[in-house]
C-alpha cells in the first residue's frame, strides 16, 4: 500500500518554535519516504490549524496524520476528532511530542533540539505507516448490578443504582444488612442516633422493587467480564425457611443454647438461633449450626417444635445461585485491627480494656447495658476512662503505617458521650495528633475539650496492665515531657481499621487489585477514586480505605453513578488498540494465558490456540512481549511498528 502521511508541525506560539526550527522539521519530513504532505503552523490546535489538517486530509488523500506538537495526553483527542470529521479513522491520527519531550527540555540548543524533533516526528511517521483503521470494540451489556456488602456504602450504592432504573442484587454475608453502622450508638459530629438514620435505608433497600436482597450469602465465584459477569453466590444454610418464617421470634426465646453475640461484640450472649439485632433486615432468624445443641448432639429440636409455621428445617443445605450482572460494586467494609496483636495493651485479655466497637455497644440504647456505661468486669460505672487513638495505626514498625482517619473523631465522640452519661467521670484521651478534617469536625473537637472537659494528653501509651481492679495506663505527655500514670476504670482502644478478612478473599476471587494492606485499589487516586482498574468493578466505602460515614456514602453514590453511566449505553465501547493473536502462528504454548493479569487470554481447546477476549483485554502488551512465536500482537503497536520506530529514532 502506498503511504500518504501528512505531517503538521505546530509552533505552539514560541513554545516549540522558540527552540525548534519548525520550518526545518517540516522540510526534513517532507523528504521522508511515505510523507505526502508536510507543513507548519502557529497554533495547530486552533480552529484554522485544525482546518488545515482537515483540508489536507481530503486534498492529499492522506492515509495517516502526525501532529508534531504537545503531549498526546493534551490534544490527541482533539486531532482525532478533527481527523474523524474529515473522514479519516481516528486511530490513524497520532501525536509526535516535540514540546514536552523536546522544545521545553532542550532550551538553548536549537540545533540539537531540531535534530531530535526530526527524529521524534520520523519515529511517529513510521508508526503511523502501519497504523490500521480501528473501531472501538462493542460489548453487549447486562444492565443489572451486583453489590457486594450490605453496610451503609453497599446499601447506598444499591439504592442509587435501583433508583436510576436498574436491577440490583445486594449480597451480604451476615444474616442482616446494616454493617458496622448498625452497631454504632450515635454519629459524629451531629450526634444523630445511628440506627435512626440507617434503619429506614435498610428497610427501603429490602422493599425496593428493583433490589434483590440476599443476606447470609457469599460471592463464591465471578466469571466473565464487564457487562457480562456470571456470579455464583452461595446462600448459606440458615436452617430456617425464610420465605415461610414470619419472624415471630418464638424459636429465639425458647432456644437454650447461648454464645457471645457478634453484633454486641461479645458483650452479651445471643442464642444459637438468632436475629443479630432487633431492627435486623430481614427480621428473620438464622440457625448457627456450630453452637446449636441439636446439631452438636442430636437432642433438643426445641425451635422446630415451637415454630408455629414449621419454618425450621434441619435438612437445609447451602445453595449456589447464579446471577448475571453487568457491573459489580465492592463494598466489603472493614474490621478492627485484632486486639490480640496489641500485647502492650493486654492483648485482649484484660476485661476492662475494650475496643471502640464494644464501647459503641455500651453507649447504644439498644445495647447490652441499655446505654449505661458499665465496665465489663464488674458492671460498675467507671469514673476514670482512658481513650487511646492510633492503636495499631500510624505504627510502621509494629503494626500498620496508615492513619485510620476516623478514630480521633469517634473517640472524641466516645469521650463526650461518656461525659454526658457520667457527669462526675473523667475522660482522658491520648493522641498523636488530633485530626479533624471534615465539616463541623473541628468544632466538635473544640466542644469536647472545652465544654465537656475531656482531657487531651499528647503522647503514646506504652503499657496497660491490671492492678487492684484498676486498669493502669502508663503513658507520656510529650508536651510537658512528663510520665503519666493513670489508674483508670476502663480503657477504650481506637483500633486501626483494616479491610475485612472476607474482602481480601473476595479481591482474590474477583482479581481486583488491593494495596499491601488489603484495601482495594482505585483506578486513579485522584481522578478515578470509585473505579477499580479492572473494568466493570467499582469500589465503595471502607473496603477502599479508612473513611467515615459521609465519605463512604458519597463514594457509594459515586460508584452507583458510574454504574448508571455504564448502563446508560446500549452497548459498551472499549479501546480497540489491544492484543490479538494470529491463529496461524500460535503454537498453543499458553504463555500468554499465564502472564495475562486480566485472564483475557484464554485457550481454545478445540483449535489448540490462544485467544484474546476483546472485552477484557486492557492492552498492556505483556502477552505480546512473552509470546515466543510472535503470534500475539498489539493493534497499532505491533512489533514491526516498534522495530521501525526504533530504527527511525536512531537514524540521522
Amino acid at each position, binding site marked *: 500500500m502506498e503511504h500518504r502521511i501528512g505531517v503538521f508541525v505546530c509552533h505552539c506560539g514560541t513554545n516549540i518554535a522558540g527552540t525548534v526550527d519548525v520550518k526545518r522539521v517540516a522540510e526534513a519530513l517532507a523528504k521522508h*519516504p511515505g510523507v505526502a504532505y508536510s507543513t507548519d503552523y502557529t497554533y495547530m490546535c486552533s480552529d484554522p490549524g485544525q482546518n488545515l489538517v482537515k483540508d489536507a486530509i481530503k486534498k492529499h488523500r492522506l492515509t495517516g496524520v502526525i501532529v508534531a506538537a504537545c*503531549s*498526546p*495526553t493534551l490534544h490527541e483527542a482533539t486531532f482525532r476528532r478533527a481527523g474523524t470529521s474529515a473522514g479519516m479513522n481516528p486511530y490513524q491520527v497520532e501525536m509526535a*511530542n516535540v*514540546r*514536552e*519531550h*523536546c522544545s*521545553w*527540555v*532542550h*532550551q*538553548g*540548543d536549537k540545533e*540539537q*533540539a531540531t*535534530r*531530535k524533533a526530526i*527524529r*521524534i516526528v520520523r*519515529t511517529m511517521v513510521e508508526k503511523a505507516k502501519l497504523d490500521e483503521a480501528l473501531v472501538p470494540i462493542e460489548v453487549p451489556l447486562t444492565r443489572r448490578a451486583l453489590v457486594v456488602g450490605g453496610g451503609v456504602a453497599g446499601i447506598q450504592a444499591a439504592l442509587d443504582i435501583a433508583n436510576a432504573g436498574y436491577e440490583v442484587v445486594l449480597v451480604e454475608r451476615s444474616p442482616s444488612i446494616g454493617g458496622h453502622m448498625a452497631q454504632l450508638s450515635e454519629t459524629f459530629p451531629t450526634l444523630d442516633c445511628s440506627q435512626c438514620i440507617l434503619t429506614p435505608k435498610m428497610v427501603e433497600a429490602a422493599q425496593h422493587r428493583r433490589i434483590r436482597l440476599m443476606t447470609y450469602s457469599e460471592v463464591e465465584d465471578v466469571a466473565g467480564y464487564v457487562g457480562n459477569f456470571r456470579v455464583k453466590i452461595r446462600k448459606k444454610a440458615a436452617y430456617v425457611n425464610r420465605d415461610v418464617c414470619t419472624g415471630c421470634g418464638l424459636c429465639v426465646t425458647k432456644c437454650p443454647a447461648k454464645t457471645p453475640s457478634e453484633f454486641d461484640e461479645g458483650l452479651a450472649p445471643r442464642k444459637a438461633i438468632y436475629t443479630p439485632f432487633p431492627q435486623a433486615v430481614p427480621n428473620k432468624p438464622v440457625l448457627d449450626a456450630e453452637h446449636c445443641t441439636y446439631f452438636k448432639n442430636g437432642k433438643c429440636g426445641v425451635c422446630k417444635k415451637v415454630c408455629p409455621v414449621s419454618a425450621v428445617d434441619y435438612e437445609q443445605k447451602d445453595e449456589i445461585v447464579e446471577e448475571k450482572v453487568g457491573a459489580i460494586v465492592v463494598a466489603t467494609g472493614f474490621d478492627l485491627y485484632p486486639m490480640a496483636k496489641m500485647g502492650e495493651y493486654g492483648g485482649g485479655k484484660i476485661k476492662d480494656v475494650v475496643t471502640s466497637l464494644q464501647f459503641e455497644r455500651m453507649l447504644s440504647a439498644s445495647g447490652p447495658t441499655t446505654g449505661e456505661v458499665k465496665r465489663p468486669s464488674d458492671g460498675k460505672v467507671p469514673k476514670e476512662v482512658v481513650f487511646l487513638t492510633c492503636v495499631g495505626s500510624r505504627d510502621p514498625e509494629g503494626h500498620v503505617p496508615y492513619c485510620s482517619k476516623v478514630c480521633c473523631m469517634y473517640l472524641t465522640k466516645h469521650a463526650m458521650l461518656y461525659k454526658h452519661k457520667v457527669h462526675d467521670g473523667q475522660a482522658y484521651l491520648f493522641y498523636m495528633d488530633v485530626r479533624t478534617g471534615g465539616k463541623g469536625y473541628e468544632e466538635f473537637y473544640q466542644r469536647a475539650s472545652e465544654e465537656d472537659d475531656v482531657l487531651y494528653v499528647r503522647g503514646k501509651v506504652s503499657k496497660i496492665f491490671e492492678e487492684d481492679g484498676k486498669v493502669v495506663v502508663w503513658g507520656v505527655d510529650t508536651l510537658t515531657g512528663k510520665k503519666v500514670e493513670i489508674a483508670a476504670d476502663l480503657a477504650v482502644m481506637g483500633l486501626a481499621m483494616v479491610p475485612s478478612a472476607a474482602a481480601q478473599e473476595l479481591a482474590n476471587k474477583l482479581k481486583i*487489585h488491593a*494495596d*499491601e494492606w488489603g484495601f482495594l485499589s482505585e483506578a486513579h487516586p485522584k481522578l478515578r477514586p470509585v473505579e477499580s*482498574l479492572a473494568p466493570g468493578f467499582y469500589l465503595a466505602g471502607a473496603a477502599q480505605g479508612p473513611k467515615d460515614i459521609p465519605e463512604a456514602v458519597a463514594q457509594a453514590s459515586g460508584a452507583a453513578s458510574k454504574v448508571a453511566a455504564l448502563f446508560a449505553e446500549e452497548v459498551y465501547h472499549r479501546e480497540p488498540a489491544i492484543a490479538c493473536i494470529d491463529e496461524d*502462528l500460535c503454537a498453543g504454548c499458553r504463555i500468554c494465558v499465564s*502472564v495475562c*493479569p*486480566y485472564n483475557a487470554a484464554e485457550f481454545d481447546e478445540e483449535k489448540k490456540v490462544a485467544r484474546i477476549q476483546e472485552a477484557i483485554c*486492557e*492492552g*498492556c*502488551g*505483556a502477552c*505480546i*512481549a*512473552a509470546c*515466543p*512465536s*510472535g503470534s500475539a500482537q*498489539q493493534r497499532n*503497536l505491533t*512489533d*514491526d511498528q*516498534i*522495530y*521501525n*520506530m*526504533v*530504527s527511525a*529514532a*536512531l*537514524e540521522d
Partner: protein
Amino acid sequence: MFEPRIVCFFCRWCTYAGADLAGTSRKQYPPNGVVVRVNCSGRVDPQHVLWAFREGADGVLIGGCHPNDCHYQDGNYKTMRRVALLKPLLEQMGIEPERLRLEWISAAEGEKLVGVMNGFVDAVRALGPLEYGPIAERVGGPRPTGLAAKAAAGTTGKKPASKKSAKRAVKTPAKKTAKRAAKKPAKKTARKITKKAPKRTGRSAAKKRAR
C-alpha cells in the same frame, strides 16, 4: 564530544507522563534519547532492546511504574525479570550490560527523569560508542567471552566517534538487509519478513546512497 544515541521505552502511565512533567516544569536534560511510548514497560520485548542495539543505539533506557504502581497490575515486575535475564545475555554478546537501564519513574517524578537522563547519558558516553560489527566477523574471529576478554584484548574504553561513523558508512545496504534477516528473531516468520524487508531495504538503500 561523543553524543550517544539512546532509545527510551517509556510506559504511558508513569514514565512518559513523568517526562511530560519534566517538560511542563521546563527541566533541562540532554537531547540524546528518543522516546518510544508503550502502554506498559511489560510490553518491551528483549528483542526490541536487541534490535535497538543492532540499529545503532548506544544505550537503551526502559522506564516503568514503581513496583506496586503498575497500571496493569504487575507488568513492571515482568520487565524487571526480563531485564535481569537480558543483561547477562548482552554481556555474552559483547555489549556492556550498563548500556541497558531499567528505571522506575512515576508520573510525579519529572525531577527523577532528568537525573536519570543525565546520569545515563554520562554513563553511556563514558562507555563510548557501541562496537557492533557484523555477526560474520564475530563468528570468524576469536569468540568474545564477555567483558573481561574484551578488556584483555584492549577493545573497551572510549573510542573516537569517527570510527563508528566510518563503520556505519561502509555498511552496504545489502549487508544490512542480510544482517537484519539473520539477526531478526527467527520467530518473525517468512511471511513477515517478505512483507517488510523489501520496503525497508528500498528506503535504507536510497538513504545510504544519498549519504
